[in-house]
């Protein structure tokens, strides 16, 4: 149901119209006409206890006392495509434009353990991220970029240990000691089964690999976050804010239990857990969700896991702005949407932010689009004034009431997930996947009916034509990337000394079978020139591959 023309098409139902349904947030939480002090149970004193101060338990107001006045969030635009040198060029460009940390996108073959020359990889090499076959490739990605000065996030999961190994070898080659490295490894395999779908091995062995990385990192990488527990993808796949929060917390609980079962100390690993949430368009709901997240994590860490140090109960998160809320129609509108989302992340106290490109419905971002995303962050940081004080929305009757409500609903859902046996069991039973799919369907129906307004799509839409006009010069990855990468890897494989590479892989197979931490063997193999496909192949042989059961 398009509604074209200059605003004279059908307009969405508004709260003031007679006979309307109750007004809710995007996630279905009822919103009153007005909020007053009476909406906050227990009055001022109780609220003060629920809030604490920024940097103090229960961390509702932020993980750090001075927040952005002390240090701005990290501007970390996700980037990567083509060959390592293409990605290096984009990284240098972004750093030159004022980006303050890096976030690497890997192509699907790399994410799924295929070398660029593998027939399974052919159509996908270099499209959604950079192609990494060896540690040499990783070194090229960071050529000229000081790894002891730049924090790097790696959006990698099933092959996280392998990619970490190639990064550590790259660091060795540039003379940077492990203890100087800063960054984050996404390494959240549960959400792959749940929503993102870039899993490789079955759940049990996958969790073992996640734990190996965290164990290794706890010892060797003191400034590195070895996992980023994320609800982002479940949200982008269609669930609502409460589900996003509950699923993230349930996953965090499952991981902590796995790490504790390995014998790791909560006080040692918890301060290095990082989290990752979406920030979408319902501004106040998103802010409330993020504040509730910090308060919930504090409670989980202290009550469930007995955390005693503040750092072990202090939630830090990266905010990815939402891509699914952006439209193909009238793409410049997405600049406004992205601005609102970035603002939501800032008001919600994010430590690190990625803003989607306005061309998100069409392509990975052009230089122009990603620069505009960066400028969005910079303008909010430097011109809007919202960074001058911590948690500026605290005390708002609406925001505090919504924070309380989201927390309550999320905790209920967490209890439901507990009753199902925890996140891993629930995911294996396919239950939260069903929530996500149903929620996505409902949202699409609301869009089609006009109940959920989308400017340029179901209201104030363009008239006639053949549909949305995309960018006039769409971003295209160099079509020869696949061939070149494959050839380059073939050459390296032919030129390497096979003995250390073979012995590295044999050691890897041995350690994998024996249940030893796989990281040392991976580093040895990567150093000797083993490819991603070879290392992933060792795990494939040991663990098998996972096939998703039919959803119905």
């Amino acid at each position, binding site marked *: *149901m*398009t509604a074209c023309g200059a605003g004279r098409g059908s307009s969405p139902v508004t709260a003031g119209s007679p006979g309307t349904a109750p007004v809710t947030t995007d996630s279905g939480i009822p919103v009153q006409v007005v909020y007053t002090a009476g909406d906050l149970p227990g009055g001022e004193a109780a609220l003060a206890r629920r809030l604490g101060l920024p940097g103090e338990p229960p961390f509702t107001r932020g993980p750090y006392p001075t927040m952005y006045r002390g240090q701005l969030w990290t501007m970390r635009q996700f980037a990567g495509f083509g060959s390592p040198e293409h990605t290096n060029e984009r990284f240098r460009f972004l750093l030159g434009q004022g980006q303050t940390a890096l976030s690497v996108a890997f192509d*699907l*073959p790399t*994410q*799924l353990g*295929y070398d660029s020359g593998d027939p*399974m*990889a*052919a*159509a*996908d090499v270099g*499209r*959604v991220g950079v192609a990494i076959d060896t540690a040499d490739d990783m070194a090229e990605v960071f050529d000229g970029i000081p790894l002891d000065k730049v924090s790097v996030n790696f959006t990698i999961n099933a092959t996280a240990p392998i990619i970490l190994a190639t990064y550590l070898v790259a660091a060795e080659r540039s003379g940077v000691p492990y203890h100087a490295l800063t960054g984050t490894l996404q390494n959240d395999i549960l959400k*792959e089964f749940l929503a*993102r*779908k*870039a899993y490789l091995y079955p759940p049990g062995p996958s969790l073992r690999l996640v734990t190996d990385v965290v164990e290794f990192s706890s010892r060797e990488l003191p400034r590195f976050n070895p996992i980023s527990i994320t609800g982002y993808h479940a949200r*982008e*796949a*269609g669930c609502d804010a409460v589900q996003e929060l509950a699923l993230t917390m349930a996953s965090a609980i499952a991981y902590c239990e796995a790490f504790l079962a390995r014998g790791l100390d909560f006080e040692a690993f918890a301060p290095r857990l990082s989290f990752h949430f979406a920030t979408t368009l319902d501004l106040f709901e998103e802010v409330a969700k993020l504040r509730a997240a910090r308060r919930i994590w504090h409670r989980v860490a202290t009550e469930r896991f007995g955390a005693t140090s503040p750092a072990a109960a202090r939630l830090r998160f990266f905010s990815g702005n939402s891509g*699914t809320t952006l*439209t*193909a*129609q009238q793409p410049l509108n997405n600049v406004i949407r992205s601005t609102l989302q970035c603002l939501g992340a800032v008001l919600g106290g994010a430590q690190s932010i990625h803003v989607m490109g306005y061309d998100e*419905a*069409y*392509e*990975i971002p052009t230089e122009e689009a990603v620069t505009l995303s960066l400028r969005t962050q910079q303008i909010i940081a430097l011109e809007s004034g919202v960074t001058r004080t911590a948690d500026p929305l605290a005390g708002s009757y609406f925001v505090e009431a919504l924070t309380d409500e989201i927390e309550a609903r999320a905790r209920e859902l967490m209890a439901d997930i507990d009753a199902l046996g925890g996140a891993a069991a629930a995911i294996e039973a396919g239950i939260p996947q069903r929530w*996500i*799919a149903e929620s*996505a*369907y409902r949202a*699409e*129906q609301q*869009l*089609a009916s006009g109940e959920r307004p989308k400017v340029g*799509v179901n209201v104030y839409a363009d008239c006639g034509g*053949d*549909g*949305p*006009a*995309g*960018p006039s010069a*769409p971003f295209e*990855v160099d079509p020869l990337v696949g061939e070149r990468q494959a050839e380059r890897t073939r050459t390296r494989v032919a030129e390497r000394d096979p003995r250390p590479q073979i012995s590295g892989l044999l050691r890897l197979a041995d350690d994998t079978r024996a249940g030893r931490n796989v990281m040392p063997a991976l580093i040895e193999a990567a150093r000797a020139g083993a490819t991603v496909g070879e290392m992933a192949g060792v795990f494939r042989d040991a663990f098998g591959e996972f096939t*998703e059961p*039919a*959803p*119905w």
Partner: protein
Amino acid sequence: MSGPRILLAKPGLDGHDRGLKVIAFALREAGAEVIYLGLRQSPAAIVAAAVAEDADLIGVSVLSGAHLPLAGQLMAQRAERGGGHIPVAIGGTIPAEHARRLREMGVDAVYPVGSPLPEVVDGLLRLAGGDGAPAARRAPGKRAGRHGRRAAS
């Protein structure tokens, strides 16, 4: 009379299945029988399943940008495996120029990101012959699925 049999799948390595699942739900609600193959299907496997399942339509979704090579493989497999009578629809992050090239390859319908759901559903049902034509075309006794996964309608 049964609804049209529509096979849905994602070829290649892309895992973004939100859209495909939404379409599956909507097609079921509209009375189609959905055969949901899901993720990481090779073009060969997709066509083989469509032929074995006597599908009235193959619908694929690609959001990784790999739609041209994957569609090329799919159409070649369709020719090789006796599936030439089965229409093909593709959805994804597909620029207008690529949509044109896909249609030149013989793809029957292209739905770029932003295509409204009702339009997609109507289009797919029409392509699949939702007016009862497939039941007449179908050889007797070939209804039961013999390959891959199928959904209850």
